């Protein structure tokens, strides 16, 4: 979907072999292992994977809000060509929200219960734009409220006076307050019911196009974000295993894990079918398996997979897969589906 002209420019966000560990008592947890990906201006990226696969760690690394025990080990995170990891705290603070905003996983709880919603958004605006008076900032909040589909006169209410969907919209309005270039939405709609989920996502996508922002959607459910993402990156156990346009990955996944992931969620548009899950558990990242991290659960694993780690290679233009034996595009999901044993559906979304 992204035009060829855009690709030649410097990407808005680029992760370059970014590796991050969490220091624990039992040793380093290798949460993110050498992730490389690019996001262009105006593009939206879907980051998909099971819980604990490192997608939230990637998001938090970009906005640099990792817990204290997180240790970026190697690689760079370039935002507009600036390495975010090299900025000092004050520089990073000024960048947050002004350039990179976030809609949190638990959007419900990201509003402080003791302040009016309007005040919490005004606070973000006046922090980054001290020349703005409160009246101007409030006017902007009112406009944002209308943009996300909330009544203007609700802005001076407290969070507990909002419903779940309204809080979600308010949080989105808050993320847009400073017109950021990039918005990261970490599981933005998981707490909502499916109808509201879909509507809010579509509205977000519309706003993104209108404001020409970039967006990263993070979800464990690929069907939720496939429609609103231009490109999709699939992560497994801290590794990027497949990258490509949303349509390609959704319709013709090539990494066996991506194939399994497609099969694990119902498609709103696709045909009715038996849901399948991938056998086994994600590996313990304290001691990840050698070779391909997916091999213990992979139906196609060979001796090579057990020994050597597959590099992320371009299989077709704009399409990268890290697998020794990618599923042939022609074979598609249907042929491989039978390889997965049927398991109770909760096995995949544990942890």
């Amino acid at each position, binding site marked *: 979907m992204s035009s060829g002209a855009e690709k030649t420019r410097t990407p808005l966000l680029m992760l370059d072999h970014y590796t991050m560990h969490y220091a624990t008592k039992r040793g380093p947890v290798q949460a993110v292992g050498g992730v490389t990906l690019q996001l262009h201006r105006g593009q939206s990226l879907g980051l998909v994977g099971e819980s604990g696969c490192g997608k939230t760690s990637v998001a938090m690394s970009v906005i640099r809000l990792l817990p204290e025990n997180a240790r970026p080990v190697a690689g760079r995170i370039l935002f507009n060509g600036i390495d975010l990891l090299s900025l000092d705290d004050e520089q990073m*603070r000024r960048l947050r929200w002004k350039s990179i905003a976030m809609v949190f996983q638990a959007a419900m709880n990201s509003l402080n219960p*003791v302040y009016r919603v309007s005040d919490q958004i005004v606070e973000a605006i*006046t922090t980054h734009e001290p020349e703005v008076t409160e009246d101007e900032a409030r006017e902007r909040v009112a406009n944002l409220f209308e943009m996300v589909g909330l009544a203007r006169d609700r802005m001076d209410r407290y969070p507990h006076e909002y419903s779940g969907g309204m809080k979600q919209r308010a949080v989105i309005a808050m993320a847009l307050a400073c017109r950021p270039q990039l918005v990261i939405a970490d599981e933005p709609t998981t707490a909502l019911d499916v109808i509201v989920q879909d509507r809010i996502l579509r509205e977000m996508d519309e706003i993104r196009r209108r404001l020409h922002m970039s967006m990263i959607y993070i979800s464990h459910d690929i069907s939720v974000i496939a429609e609103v993402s231009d490109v999709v990156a699939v992560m497994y156990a801290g590794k990027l295993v497949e990258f490509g346009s949303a349509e390609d990955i959704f319709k013709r996944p090539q990494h066996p894990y991506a194939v399994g992931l497609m099969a694990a969620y119902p498609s709103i548009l696709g045909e009715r079918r038996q849901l399948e899950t991938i056998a086994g558990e994600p590996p313990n990242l304290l001691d990840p398996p050698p070779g391909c991290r997916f091999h213990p659960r992979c139906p196609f694993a060979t001796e090579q997979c057990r020994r050597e780690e597959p590099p992320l290679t371009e299989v077709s233009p704009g399409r990268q897969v890290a697998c020794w034996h990618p599923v042939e595009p022609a074979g598609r999901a249907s042929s491989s589906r039978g390889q997965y044993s049927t398991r109770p559906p909760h096995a995949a979304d544990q942890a």
Partner: protein
Amino acid sequence: MGRYFASRLGQLILTLFIYITLVYFILQAMPGDITQALVFNPRIPQSARAALQHQLGLDAPLVVQYFHYVRNFFTGNLGVSFSHYPRPVWNILAERIPRTLLLFTTSTLLSFYVGYILGRVIAWRRGGFVDYGATVVGVTFWTAFYPLLALILIWLFASELHWLPLNQFISPTLWLDAPVTSNTIFHYMILSLAGAALLLALVYALVPRWVRRPSSRCWVTRGAWVVALAGLVSGWWASGYAALAWDIVSHMVLPVVTLTLISFAGNMLLMRDSMLETTREDYVLAARAKGLPDRVVRDRHAARTALLPVVTSFALSLGSVMGGGLVTETVFSWPGLGQILFDAAIQADYPLATGALAFTGIFVLVAHLVADVLYAWLDPRISVVSSESEAST
């Protein structure tokens, strides 16, 4: 909010009634007749004893006596003190209560503020040396034997360093040829303090409406503090009684410091624990993601919500705070409610002891009401919560 306040006020009156009943029956359970103490007291004429017996209706059944007592109490008739005969109890208490009020309010505000500030700092640097050090110091003060702490402070600052006067309320030599009594000065002090506090409260309430640029608000509030303090100082200076007022203030310093020391630690430790919970909340993470400066995240987001449980448990600890205050008063010979209670108890002055004990309770209850209203003001959810709980009961 109005309904909340009304229901709280209703509860307060009921609680007060039960408290007074308890005080009455506890004192009734003491051995001997109340007027027996009078027989052996040469300072009290027997006619007074007879009058008192008649007033209290001691020959009547206990229930009747109790109703007399309650009626007298609510009509302000607390009887006549034995040990200060013939001063009515009410007269003595009216003199003492403002002194305790000022001491209690000052030290409570100070200890709460200090505890709040320190608690949020040590929670923000959890696990470091500051955290452990502050916790140990805090626990030490919290569990310190406060009469001894008071004595140590008196010895250090009054006897050794001579920075502050020793004990009591005033230095009598200074007041020998003063044209006014210490009580008059003291009442004007309370009035001027209340005026300054009112001014500050008004400024804080009106600033968000007047000043539309948030970054310049703190300058306005700081200016208000300067004006209020300068007004107080210059006002007293101009009145010509500054030296006398200063005498009372300097006598207040040590008791206030002692009371602050023994109670700030509890607030500090509570604040720390409460804050450790709120720092994990998503809205604190969101505040940080918004690019707010670290101090703003800490003070406006983490600490502000962490304050709520601290206010609650502070309201619940008022009884023991008051107890500590009365003991400290006694050690410092500060002529307030605590000292009069202690003296009345030692001298078996039943009416005065009952009155002082009852007013101690009233004091605590009113402070509790204030804390309740403060809490409702701090937590916007409270009106919803109270209407929910009313609906469920």
